[in-house]
């Protein structure tokens, strides 16, 4: 396959390297002379210096016979235009664009780019699996005591929204010390203070009860309720 890559930064370099090893014909288009030199030194004569959005450059690169066109620069608008030029002027069948703003995925689809890869979206998807939703943020560890001061944000769908503090089934040795509402106004709570959506709850708890505290404040209300 003849694969063209626009953008010879880190991503472009390593992708080109892998594709060359897999036996494909690869051409990297890169504006920066130093990056071009590095690719040429390491991977051989597979780099063309120029602007991958320019018709003239793409013509010289033989874009018309490319099987796959991948735009990997750091700028979403450049990747969009490079792919659109490849597709509409040179009839490249498959185009892939890297995007930084995950919201551009839908826009690019609508504007005819076959595939988008968003590193931001990939990283987000990974950390959302690793981290609990609306994580508890440790603010301060009180040395030698096993106690911590932590902050938990109450999500809008939490079952505790509207409940009073004395109705919460808090873990042992856990004390809610401050409630900061969405406007940023702090309240020192009493037992009848009610929890509102978006509140930031600051509490003192033992490290081992962190998860239980987070669960109390963030577990969603059942849909039947």
């Amino acid at each position, binding site marked *: 396959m003849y694969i063209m890559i626009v953008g010879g930064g880190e991503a472009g370099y390593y992708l080109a390297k892998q594709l060359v090893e897999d036996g494909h014909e690869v051409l990297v288009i890169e504006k920066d002379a130093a990056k071009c030199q590095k690719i040429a030194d390491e991977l051989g004569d597979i780099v063309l210096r120029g602007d991958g*959005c320019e018709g003239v450059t793409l013509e010289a690169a033989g874009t018309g016979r490319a099987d796959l066109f991948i735009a990997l620069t750091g700028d979403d608008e450049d990747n969009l*235009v490079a792919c659109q030029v490849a597709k*509409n002027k040179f009839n490249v069948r498959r185009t892939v664009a890297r995007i930084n703003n995950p919201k551009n995925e839908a826009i690019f689809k609508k504007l005819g780019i076959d595939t988008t890869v968003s590193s931001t979206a990939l990283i987000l998807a990974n950390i959302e699996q690793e981290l609990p939703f609306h994580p508890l943020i440790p603010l301060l560890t009180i040395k030698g005591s096993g106690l911590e001061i932590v902050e938990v944000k109450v999500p809008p769908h939490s079952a505790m929204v509207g409940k009073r503090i004395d109705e919460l089934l808090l873990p042992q040795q856990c004390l809610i010390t401050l409630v900061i509402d969405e406007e940023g106004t702090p309240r020192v709570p009493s037992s009848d203070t009610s929890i509102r959506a978006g509140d930031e709850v600051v509490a003192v708890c033992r490290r081992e009860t962190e998860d239980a505290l987070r669960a109390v404040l963030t577990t969603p209300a059942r849909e039947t309720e």
Partner: protein
Amino acid sequence: MGCGRVGAELAALLDYEGQEVTILDIDPDAFGQLPPDFKGNCVVGNGIDQDVLQRVGLAEADAFVAVTPGDNRNVMASQIAKHIFGVPRVVCRIFDPIREELYHSLGLETISPTREVARLLKEALERKPAETPRGEG
């Protein structure tokens, strides 16, 4: 979108005509180019960010003009305005005549200053020196 020389000039012209104008630029200092009595709305923000365009009320706009120095930014913003927000009138400046031709053929209303100015200069050269230049050349 884009408060450079052309953007500021156009915004001021439309403002004097009594149009409701919002001008967008990523650089807060750019608005210094506007005349002091400019009554329109100046917004600092990235014109290729859908959220920013939403916030400035692009969905209610009657027209959108992209005149940043970057052809690709103009192209992307114009396509978002036209195809995502459904703005009835979108005009996009593209310096590169090749790209201008392509996006024109794809249905975008485009102007290439490079081509237009070259044409005007050629016409000026071809006129007899005594002849008074006409506005439209």
